[in-house]
């Protein structure tokens, strides 16, 4: 199978280049990650992140034939050759397929992604109805792979000011949680020309999310909450 992979090692390359590889696959190689590891066995300088190899840790996000996805759950069968692999777009490249995600995590951390409560905790669990809990479905499952934010043109232009779809999905995850007691502060914090309102509903985020989540919908719900409190 043929591959064309983005290579850049800051210690020796003045600029990035594409390197071609051809590799013989085994019958057990099912996913793109399996093939990349065959290549890495031949060329140990090829660098990428990887861990769970089942699509739940979010390590191996990359741009695959022009589309962001996780290598470990992208079937080899559907890929056209040569398979073109590039780092996630819009973030600084550290080396090869490894990008610097500091900005992405900073935005995530800035939405206070934890439950805020003022009332004293009960002896046992805080109660929540199954219906209220269902509001969190499609939100809490995010794996922070950054496929969405790095597919978002608004995030490319303003990665320091616009929170990006992943962080906004988490912002809404806590707004939607009936146990959280700081909805007003959370909405105040998003009331800003950039942080939330740079989303132009292009929907690239929902299209590429490897977990099938829909940040655009969550962003819409945040906007609806803002309208609701104005009237």
């Amino acid at each position, binding site marked *: 199978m043929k591959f064309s992979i983005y290579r850049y*090692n*800051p*210690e*020796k390359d003045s600029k990035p280049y594409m390197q071609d590889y051809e590799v013989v696959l085994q019958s*057990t190689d*099912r996913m793109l990650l399996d093939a990349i590891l065959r290549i*890495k*066995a031949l*060329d*140990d*300088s090829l*660098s*990428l*992140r*990887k*861990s*769970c*190899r*089942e*699509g*739940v*840790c*979010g*390590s191996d996000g990359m741009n695959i034939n022009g589309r962001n996805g996780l290598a470990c*759950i992208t*079937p080899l069968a559907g890929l056209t050759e040569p398979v073109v692999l590039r780092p996630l777009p819009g973030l600084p490249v*550290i*080396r*090869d397929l*490894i990008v610097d*995600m500091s900005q992405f*995590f900073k935005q995530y*951390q800035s939405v*206070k*992604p*934890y*439950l805020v*409560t003022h009332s004293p*905790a009960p*002896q*046992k*669990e*805080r*109660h*929540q*109805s*199954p219906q*209220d*809990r269902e509001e*969190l479905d499609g939100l*809490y*499952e995010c*794996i*922070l792979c950054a496929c969405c934010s790095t597919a978002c043109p608004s995030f490319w232009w303003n990665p320091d000011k616009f929170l990006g779809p992943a962080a906004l999905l988490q912002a809404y995850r*806590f707004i939607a*949680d009936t*146990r*959280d007691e700081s909805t007003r502060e959370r909405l105040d914090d998003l009331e800003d020309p950039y942080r939330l309102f740079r989303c132009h509903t292009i929907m690239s985020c929902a299209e590429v999310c490897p977990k099938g989540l829909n940040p655009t919908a969550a962003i819409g719900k945040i906007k609806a909450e803002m309208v609701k409190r104005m009237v």
Partner: protein
Amino acid sequence: MAVTRQVFDAVIVGGGGSGLRAALQLSEAGHSVAVFSKVFPTRSHTVAAQGGVGASLGNMQEDHWLWHMYDTIKGSDYLGDQDAIEFMCRKAPELVYELEHFGMPFDRNPDGTIYQRPFGGHTQNFGQNPVHRACAAADRTGHALLHTLYQRNIRSQCQFFVEWMALDLIRDRDGVVVGIVALEMETGQVVLFQAKVVVLATGGAGRIYQSSTNAYINTGDGLGMAARAGIPLEDMEFWQFHPTGVAGAGILITEAVRGEGGILLNALGERFMERYAPNMKDLASRDVVSRAMDQEIKEGRGVGPDKDHVLLKLDHLGEDVIHKRLPGIREIAIKFASVDPVREPIPVVPTCHYQMGGIPTNYYGQVVVPRGQQHAEPVPGLYAIGECACVSVHGANRLGTNSLLDLLVFGKSAGDHISAWLKTHPEQRDLPRQAETLSLARLRSLESDEPGESVTQLGAEMRRVVQHHAGVFRTEALLSEGVDKIRVLAQRANQLRIVDRSQVFNTARVEALELQNLMIVAEATLVSALARQESRGAHARDDYPERDDREWLKHSLWYREESRMAYKPVNLQPLTVESFEPKVRVY
């Protein structure tokens, strides 16, 4: 190479569930803590846990911590230490409520309480019938738990060193642990971290097996560090084979599938667990189910062209239950087995999943070693928690849901114990001179111009040997041949060479260092398994099919030096209740 130094109260190696739980306890108490992780914390392998966390909340049925304790002891095949097991099971509800208060998105019952499901080996009233004890967030409990703990650590402003690999422990002349040597992946620089306390929370080493549910990062780094520092590894012959890994792919299919009513079928369409465990059936403990599956396959009732797996049927649960309670499983089955479990069964096979053994500790998380007449004396300055530790609450076989519980209970317990200790110990001890020498030598050797070994090839050979010689069923002949082979491989691991010599994010270097740690774990496993001449829990010897409490009701200790074995007694004395005496184990 100039080596810089940083100073902290406590250094935690590992950013998974146990490391984050301990970090939270320490950072909220105001101590300066540094958490080291090879990956961004939410990518740690805790994220892959699916089914639930065990606690006798009794939300859906009557339950009691004492029943949980009994189940855990019986599950451990009586090798678990009963003081630690009582400690864990009593604390369980408090730790789960706490997690809920942190924001964990548990599934709910109509009355608003946490949803609980049945799980293998968990019973009401000392073995009478299955009980709903596993507190669940769909089939993504580990993901929800790990993210919740990381989020809480953002709140407490804990300091993380992300994409750093710890290389070695630093011990001073008195044997006190005073810090670590660590490698920053992004720059390739090596830094000394001086600390009053070091906590190892590096998870398991399931990557010693060819077929494993474990992530690539599960390479036993903490075990390698401990063993190189002269600390023994406990009960390393006990590896859990999870009954339901996707055949061929090794990806985990949670026991929650059977908890929700799924069943195992052989080639004849027969629900064979009824023969092996008449009472608990498909919800017998994991060692029992895995052996039964292996037996079915061995006797020719396996499924598929090679008759090498069995089937996990769950279509009868209905699309609603699958969609609501097992959505992740459906995703995995479609992606990795090309079957939609709403209509077809999933092909499954026993797959290496969990390391019951590890670095010996007590229930405060202190690492303990034999000294003089004492068999469990703390190593000053060193703690271990989570899968890399052996407390031992899992003994010879862990019950499902007890791993998430273990990392919560002992993460917090270690945090509290360290916090109290730090308050009375303001002084840092001096680092010994040239503490980095051995680590740097190991790094240099990888780049030597002498001919050497390829990481990929040696790793593959090691996984093949462990898989073949230390699988579900073991014999003297298999194991002793395996020991000979692994010793040769371990020697060769001293001559690993990498081609890539750059400093920036050199993953070849990291993988070589990981393989050296794995090799230590593999040797410990084979040597300990050969020595234990009985069958207990996950260690099944065809040549010694019975449990032998007279000779072998004791913990193994493997020392890297001379690859020598020693033993220490099992603690059969709980903290406040009567001891559970070893009995024949029937499910």
